[in-house]
């Protein structure tokens, strides 16, 4: 009995199996996603009053943050509670680049991501010695330490309210600034999702999932556990740092308490991923839609927004640990993004 991979002829007498990533749903999902991205990209031209654009900036950068946390926690088993340190690092890096050094604010976004990525290296040296709950606590402690350093810094003046001035934002018109910020938020969401899909389709993706299941098991199969974890840790830090910069561009004043807020940049992100589905690429997309709906309904009640989202996340964690995406999977095993190879043929279980 043999296995035939896609594109290979079956040996005589062999049972024909095909291995494919694409399914009808994933092709439809990709086509639908591409169409949605095009529609969203053109939004500034047809949403003239910005009634959709303004809230979408928040939704989109939250999707980017959620995809990165999901990459760490859902696929690599690295449950970090300290991602707000990279948001804050990105925010303050942009302030420094654009405000203090006069660099172009848009070009400063990837540079802010690099600062966050650079910060992630020494944090990893400390946090990677920890596992499970200790890793979560360790990353939180590291984030608090960075927040305190920024707050106390005379150069960064994290204790004061700091804003991007008109000069530092360049000669761009208000409309241009709003549009570019929106497109950057869209890039965070689309790029964040694409990063997760690309990582999961690669050898690293399989290695990551094995590391999440058993580090010793992965190590005994020749996987460099530290390097595999470090790769996604740095990528997630870079992207989260870019998000921090875009967050500042969308609301151009901040304090260290706001930029490094565990509730805004960590708790809400966790709620989004848990509600949508941890460990799936589609989950954060579903979760952020729920977040958007709740946010719209409770826009005047910040505390209630947290309570309702946290309550839904807690209920989901108990009754549907795989989130909304898991509930859909119970109904029908759909794969909207082609990340897992599936076996097509007699006896194949399409789980």
């Amino acid at each position, binding site marked *: *009995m*043999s*296995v035939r991979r896609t594109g290979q002829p079956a040996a005589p007498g062999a*049972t024909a*199996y095909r*291995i494919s990533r694409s399914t009808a749903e994933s092709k439809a999902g990709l086509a639908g996603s591409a169409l949605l991205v095009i529609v969203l990209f053109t939004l500034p031209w047809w949403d003239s009053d910005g009634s959709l654009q303004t809230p979408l900036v928040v939704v989109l950068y939250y999707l980017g943050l959620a995809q990165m946390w999901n990459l760490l926690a859902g696929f690599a088993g690295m449950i970090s509670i300290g991602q707000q340190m990279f948001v804050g690092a990105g925010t303050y890096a942009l302030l420094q680049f654009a405000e203090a050094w006069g660099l172009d604010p848009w070009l400063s976004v990837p540079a802010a991501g690099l600062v966050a990525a650079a910060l992630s290296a020494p944090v990893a040296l400390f946090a990677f010695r920890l596992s499970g709950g200790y890793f979560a606590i360790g990353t939180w402690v590291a984030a608090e330490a960075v927040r305190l350093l920024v707050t106390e810094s005379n150069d960064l003046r994290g204790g004061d309210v700091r804003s991007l001035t008109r000069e530092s934002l360049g000669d761009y018109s208000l409309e241009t600034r709003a549009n570019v910020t929106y497109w950057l938020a869209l890039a965070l969401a689309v790029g964040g999702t694409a990063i997760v899909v690309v990582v999961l389709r690669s*050898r690293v993706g*399989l*290695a990551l*999932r*094995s590391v*999440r*299941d*058993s580090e*010793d*098991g*992965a*190590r*005994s*199969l*020749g*996987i*460099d*556990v530290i390097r595999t974890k470090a790769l996604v840790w740095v990528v997630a830090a870079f992207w989260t740092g870019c998000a921090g910069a875009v967050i500042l561009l969308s609301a151009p004043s901040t304090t260290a308490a706001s930029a490094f807020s565990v509730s805004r940049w960590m708790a809400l992100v966790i709620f989004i991923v848990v509600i949508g589905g941890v*460990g799936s690429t589609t989950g954060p997309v579903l979760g952020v839609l729920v977040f958007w709906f709740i946010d719209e309904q409770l826009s005047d009640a910040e505390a209630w927004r947290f309570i309702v989202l946290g309550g839904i996340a807690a209920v989901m964690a108990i009754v549907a640990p795989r989130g909304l995406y898991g509930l859909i999977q119970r109904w029908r095993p759909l794969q909207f993004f082609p990340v*897992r*190879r*599936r*076996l097509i043929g*007699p*006896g*194949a*279980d*399409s*789980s």
Partner: protein
Amino acid sequence: MTALLDVRGLSAGYGDFQALFEVYMAVEEGETLAIIGANGAGKTTLLRTLAGLVPASSGTVRFAGADLLAVPAWKRVGHGISLVPEGRMLFPSLDVRENLLIGAHARRGGRWNLDRVIEVFPLLAPLLGRPSEVLSGGEKQAVAIGRALMANPRLMLLDEVSLGLAPLVVKQLYAALPEVVEAGTTVLVVEQDIGQAAAAADRLVCLLEGRVVLEGDPDCLTRGDIVAAYFGMKAET
């Protein structure tokens, strides 16, 4: 002739607890060597130390002439050592095919690939798309062995092949070993079932409380010798 694996004075343990005491043994290329011993004899610790998952406290291990203890665990697969761990330890979030493919992450060139593994374990063919969690014990063991073979190892470390499996399943799994050896892989198998070990191996090594107490060709050892060494009794004459 230089042994493929040469273990000299190897001691290892877990923190303050020492499980291996100056173990000496050698494995020749192309042979099947079985390590037997009662519970707590140090068999699994020996295999995990060779795989790099338990640090050695003293001694030397040379593999194909190179100092193995200087090589980190994840690099040992690339050097040609694959472990089939006790309890199979499949990755629950991966399906059977992915569990097999992850074995090839650090593969060396050689004859083993997915098709070849399925040829040796045809029972896996209809299971490739299934979650590994739903498999029977025998199926899981076949996946674990297949996963190790995907790396094209020179030396495969098999821990407790028969643990918790029906005799017929164990027989089927052991029936695959000659094909593995014929393909160029040396096998070091830990086994509690003395009869199974004696039937499958070219040589037996018996551990007792972390020390080698008996070594030899199973055809030349009497059952009394083996049982006495296994349980730490004096051999009946």
